[in-house]
């Protein structure tokens, strides 16, 4: 874990992650108990890093907020919060209100639970979570909020519904492609005969969240994000969980489906039928790009920069499915040592046999240094081994690096400020077709 400064942090603080997560849930409105500028800082960050994800129903500068001042910090901010919750219930329409704290009330120790109790005993749906920015990044905010919901909002179920699962691990905003990724994985899992709660898509409703205690399995498409939530569900609702790297492309997705199938005892034939069907669909498209791939030599060396979900997932896809040569993978999430080993394991066993250098680095301007340490050495020969043709897959912060290296570049990972993202997703079989389109279009664009 990094315990020093971070250059241009890629994403949000805990409050920001929680506000984006709450705003992504249908029918939910966050109420910030925070200083006045938190709303603006989160929204401008969202503007520059999430593929132009707008405010939506009640996000952006519409998020109700106590905007506490110096006097509230001196005397305590609870009266102001109480007033803000009361007035919010008066004019803002929502099915569930979530009080989210910023740094200031968390430091002075405002007991928001007392306000939550007051309004929920009055019959309103109000819950709270302590999400002060110093408690962690946007991924932590997602996890703090969802685990609070699991503990205080999700209805305890009398019995589990077989084949009903909850899908976690894709963090709204930190992943600009969250909606597309969730939809793609949801449709895929539904084809296994499962009922899937994906919580955040247009196919979800708040009822799904309320009834999510009935699920018989929580599936995290992440080895890192959503663990606290999964543990809360396990403790409170007795739901076991399975973690799996974010599956992008046929190789990773086949592994993922087999693991889910095994955990739910899905008949082997159903599973293999789905896999071969999806694979056939994938290759119907890939077959017809094979001409250009081979005629125009669209194989690339690659540098991949992304969070702990995307960096291994993209690396595995371009290596094992697309036949590229990833040489450097930069994981930008600040991880514990044992978590780094998980990624090392995935990337140490690429089925194509490629070896990729994996580094853990938060700072954008340091990426170039890591590359030059592994770059092909200049020799005194006329004939040089060079890092070309090359492609950088990362955030928009990696664009100058790509330009310096004469490499092509596609923004996939946060911050995504030079692309617009609506329903696009890269997960699963179908998602990886979109990723192929986007990567190869960058190359084709120059023709």
């Amino acid at each position, binding site marked *: 874990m990094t315990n020093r*400064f971070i250059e241009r942090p890629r994403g949000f603080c805990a409050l920001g992650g929680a506000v984006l997560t709450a705003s992504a849930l249908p029918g939910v409105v966050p109420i910030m108990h925070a200083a006045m500028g938190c709303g603006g800082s*989160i929204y401008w*960050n969202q503007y520059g890093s999430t593929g132009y994800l707008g405010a939506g129903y009640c996000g*952006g500068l519409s998020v109700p907020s106590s905007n506490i001042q*110096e006097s509230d910090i001196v005397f305590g901010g609870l009266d102001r919060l109480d007033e803000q919750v009361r007035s919010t219930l008066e004019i803002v329409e929502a099915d569930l209100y979530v009080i989210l704290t910023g740094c*200031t009330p968390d430091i*002075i120790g405002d007991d928001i639970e007392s306000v939550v109790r007051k309004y929920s005993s009055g019959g309103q749906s109000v819950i709270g979570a302590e999400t002060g920015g110093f408690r962690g990044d946007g991924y932590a905010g997602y996890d703090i909020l969802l685990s609070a919901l699991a503990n205080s909002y999700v209805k305890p179920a009398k019995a589990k519904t077989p084949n009903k699962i909850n899908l976690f691990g894709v963090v709204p905003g930190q992943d600009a492609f969250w909606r597309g990724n969730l939809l793609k994985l949801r449709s895929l899992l539904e084809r296994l005969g499962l009922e899937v709660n994906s919580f955040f898509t247009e196919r979800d409703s708040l009822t799904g969240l309320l009834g999510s205690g009935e699920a018989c399995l929580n599936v995290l498409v992440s080895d890192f994000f959503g663990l606290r939530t999964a543990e809360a569900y396990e403790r409170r609702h007795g739901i076991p969980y399975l973690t799996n790297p974010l599956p992008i492309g046929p190789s990773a997705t086949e592994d993922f489906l087999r693991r889910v199938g095994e955990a739910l005892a899905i008949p082997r034939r159903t599973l293999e039928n789905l896999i071969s069907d999806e694979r056939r669909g994938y290759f119907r498209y890939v077959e017809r790009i094979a001409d250009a791939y081979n005629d125009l030599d669209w194989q690339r060396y690659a540098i991949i920069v992304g969070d702990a979900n995307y960096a291994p997932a993209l690396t595995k896809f371009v290596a094992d499915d697309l036949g590229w040569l990833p040489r450097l993978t930069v994981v930008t999430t600040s991880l514990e040592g044992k978590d780094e080993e998980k990624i090392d394991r995935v990337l140490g066993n690429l089925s194509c046999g490629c070896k990729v250098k994996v580094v853990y680095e938060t700072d954008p301007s340091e990426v170039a240094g890591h590359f030059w340490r592994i770059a092909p050495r200049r020799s005194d020969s006329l004939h040089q081994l060079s890092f070309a043709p090359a492609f950088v897959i990362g955030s928009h912060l990696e664009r100058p690096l790509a330009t310096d290296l004469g490499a092509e570049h596609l923004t996939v990972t946060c911050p995504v400020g030079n692309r617009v993202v609506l329903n696009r997703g890269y997960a699963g079989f179908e998602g990886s077709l979109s990723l192929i389109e986007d990567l190869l279009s960058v190359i084709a664009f120059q023709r």
Partner: protein
Amino acid sequence: MDYIKANTAPRREDRLGTCIEFGGTVGGIAEPFCQGCLKNRRRSFSQGTICQLLPAVAILTSLQDTVVIVHGAIGCGGAAHALGANVRLGQWRGGDKNPRGALWLSTNLNERDVTSGGEEKLRQAIVEADKRYRPEAIVFLSTCVPGIIGDDIDGVARDLKDKVSAALLPVHCEGFKSKVMATAYDAIFHSFLRNLIDGSDETEFPVFDPEAAQASEAIRRKRLVNLLNVSSMTGPDQKELIRLLGKLGLEVNMLPCDAHPEAFRLAPLASLSVGVCPTHDDYFMSYLEKRYAVPYVGSHMPIGIENTGNWLRGVAAKVGQEAAAERIIAQEEAELGRALEPLRPKLKGKTCVLSAGEIRTLSTARLVQELGLEVLAVRPYHYDPFGQPEVERLSDVNPGIRLNVATAQPFEAVNILNRVEPDLYIGHNSDNVWAAKCGTAVLPIYGSNAIYSGYAGVFDVARRIHRHLENNSFNERLVKNVRQPYRESWYAEDPYKYIIGAELTA
């Protein structure tokens, strides 16, 4: 001048009586404001908005050869991801073909730092930034967390002064300290005056050839004016203002946005400071006048025909170029008038609501009146004595124009829009979407690499308004298919229901 002796600039609430809560008309604000009745107001319902950190990040990340350290939790500087696009554009204009955008660090304060203090982490960040990037200046901003736990950022600056090569500029902009985001301008200038300008001396701009060069440098400085730009100004805006000043024979030292730290050191040597936004620069320009005898002018924002003319006249009067200014103004206005002729009939009588920073909103309102639109409501982010002359001019046209002082607060905006149903909304980034969801056509009030200033700006605003009015089907379809988050009952309520006036304590 005494302010400068303190570590921090005073809050705008205290220095100017600035307020951010008012609902009424342009004809009705002068009296309660002057009597101090607008102090100590607050809202019992409010929405997350902008604190002084955001403009500080916007201005400071645009500086050349400068690293910004946001001393706080990991989210505080996040706005730079959006603002970085403008910074990149500025670097591109400056000739960098592979621009890096804004360079900033977060000290990433965590739970442990909250208990044990964040100064050590800040110190580390400064030392490492100096080594890694070798910048001319390192600016570090104090946010809420260090403000509460009591980190002494000025002490850190003193300790490290001789240990790093960059100039160190501590800026206090803790969000909870002031509810007026414009306090940021003072906070920045305060630090730059204390730490970069005072104590620098003329020998930093040496003249090598004693005679000829000194003579020409003296002439240059006589023609040299500080042009105080604002972060909402685009490259084309700046170009237009430099063009107009150039016509008066003046050379420009532009700051603070996009400037190199050297521009600040040069500022006391210029012959005049020219502001473009009265509420933005008074702190800086008045200090330069008192301490360095650099006079200043800047009671108008050069947006709109009359305003641009008055702005130019103000500058000309200080440099003895009155006659030239009148010639330029007559020529520019004639040229603009001809260009506007075909557009005027299309704009005449269209109705408009505006929302953004104080002077920006009020000057742009004058501009659209000049184009023949009717202004129904203005929503400045704050109100202070600098807004008064602007409001009076709007009031001369129609004292009944609605005036809502609010830093964003879209719930009030939506209520008003629902009542007045304008043809057009001209607003700040992040305000506009709520008007769009009312089905109103929208012109952003700044940015998008477009031009708003000077005579070229008047024409371009007219052209773009016409464009938006010609086809508003995006927003017209939006309003039919999405909804605002408010209960129906809100639209029947007074839009200012939640402003609590504590007049008795004023």
